[in-house]
């Protein structure tokens, strides 16, 4: 399929879905509205709401807050995950001692921590950052832990035979290996950072995309809820695009996987 055909078909899907939505939300079929506007709103109203947000500029403040929370959650969670994962992988005894607790905390649905974080850290950004950190940390931690533990034995032997000391081994073999595993989970962990931020905002805050959606929902403003969702999707796609660019630069040494066809 050529690029043009593909793009045309992709646009067609959006047009058909939005068209049907608009149609059933505004034209009664057999005297009955299939998508009552009160529950489903309609694409035109949603679009109007989005335009209004950008024209008045209110949206920027919320986007920036969510972005900032996501960045902080990602940074803190990743650094923590890499350090602890690395430490556990190099010290199997420590890993054994902490193993049941790590499993226990990871088994906990993170949403239940949100009230605690709000209580401890208040309604500002830090309670959302904390929620994001608990999500990001475990993704990165498990990846790095597994990755360092399973560092190719031949590679380690080769490094030793080339004369590396333990410290050089960490620097030239284990550390790059740990980082490569962190980067391989980049998409997932960045996604989780955003999830943590938005869910945290939704559950109690004064700003952010999650707050915007929650506020609209509170006054049964369905167009506002959908508008928030669309802005959020676009926001996540943009961030993901950024991650892909970063990844391309950092992982030039990795064989291309057959993930992005074309």
């Amino acid at each position, binding site marked *: 399929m050529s690029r043009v055909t593909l793009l045309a078909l992709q646009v067609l899907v959006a047009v058909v879905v939005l068209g049907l939505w608009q149609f059933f939300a505004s034209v009664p079929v057999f005297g009955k509205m299939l998508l009552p506007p009160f529950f489903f709103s309609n694409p035109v109203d949603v679009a109007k709401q989005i335009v209004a947000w950008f024209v008045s500029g209110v949206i920027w403040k919320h986007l920036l807050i969510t972005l900032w929370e996501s960045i902080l959650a990602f940074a803190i969670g990743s650094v923590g995950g890499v350090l602890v994962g690395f430490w556990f992988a190099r010290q199997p005894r420590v890993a054994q001692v902490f193993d049941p607790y790590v499993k226990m905390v990871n088994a906990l649905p993170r949403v239940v921590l949100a009230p605690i974080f709000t209580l401890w850290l208040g309604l500002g950004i830090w309670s959302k950052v904390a929620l994001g950190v608990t999500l990001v940390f475990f993704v990165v931690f498990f990846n790095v832990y597994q990755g360092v533990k399973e560092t*190719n034995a*031949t590679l380690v*032997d080769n490094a030793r*035979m*080339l*004369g590396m000391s333990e410290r050089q081994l960490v620097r*030239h073999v284990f550390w790059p290996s740990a980082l490569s595993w962190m980067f391989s989970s980049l998409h997932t962990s960045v996604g989780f950072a955003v999830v943590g931020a938005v869910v945290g905002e939704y559950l109690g805050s004064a700003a952010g995309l999650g707050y915007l959606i929650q506020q609209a929902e509170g006054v049964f403003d369905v167009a506002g809820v959908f508008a928030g969702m669309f802005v959020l999707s676009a926001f996540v796609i943009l961030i993901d695009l950024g991650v892909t660019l970063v990844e391309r630069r950092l992982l030039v*040494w990795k064989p291309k996987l057959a993930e992005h066809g074309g």
Partner: protein
Amino acid sequence: MRTGEASTAVALHDATVAFRLADARLYTAVEQARLAVADGEFVAIVGPTGCGKSTLLNVAAGLLTPASGTVRIFDAPLTGLNREAGYLFQADALFPWKTAIDNVAIGLEIAGAPRTHALQRAQGWLESVGLGGFANRYPHMLSGGQRKRVGLAQVLIRDPKILLMDEPFGPLDAQTRQIIGNLLLQLWTADRKAVLFVTHDLEEAIALADRVVIMSAGPSSRIIGDWTVALPRPRDNFEIRLTHEFHALHREIWAVLRDEVMKGYAQAGEAVG
């Protein structure tokens, strides 16, 4: 030919290597191996699959400690890793996150050489192995044969007195093997290091080595034969295989090796099915 007593680069004396298996049984891989490699001598070890050839090499490298027996490197007992040896592994052992030139330079860098100097030398070595134009490629952008060449340069740049090679050309296709074999011969002729070369390919062993050592099928494999290859040097890895002397020696050694290969297959067959 060297004058006087050539010192012994690697000497295994009754080395026995055993592993503890998962079910706590003791598995003897190599039993009472006695082997001496003189300085500047190229020795090939040939044996059926799973006979413990690589085990013997790891003992000489200091990566494995024998259960009994001694290992001496240049007449000094070996403790810990063998610092005189360079090891070319069977599996890919290049650092995937380093470019070809960084992979070659690393041996000098960790020894404290300034980076510019290390890179200069590394470029020289890449040229020696015919990869001067591939310095900035990452390992995954190189073919299997090119990766082996980089591996060779990575080991040789440190100028080890002993070269240990574990079926280094095993995964390559026949033509590439011969070409790299020739490259190895050229490089080795320039500054004769002691070489211990493990292979399952008898032809390759005869074509390259001064001596061919045969091991019996495992477990508890032993060294059961030791032939001197009196073919003239410098040799060509292609041409030498066409000579009458080569064929005579090949027939002689194969007569012994064949039985062991059959035994090895029989045991592998039992283990599998």
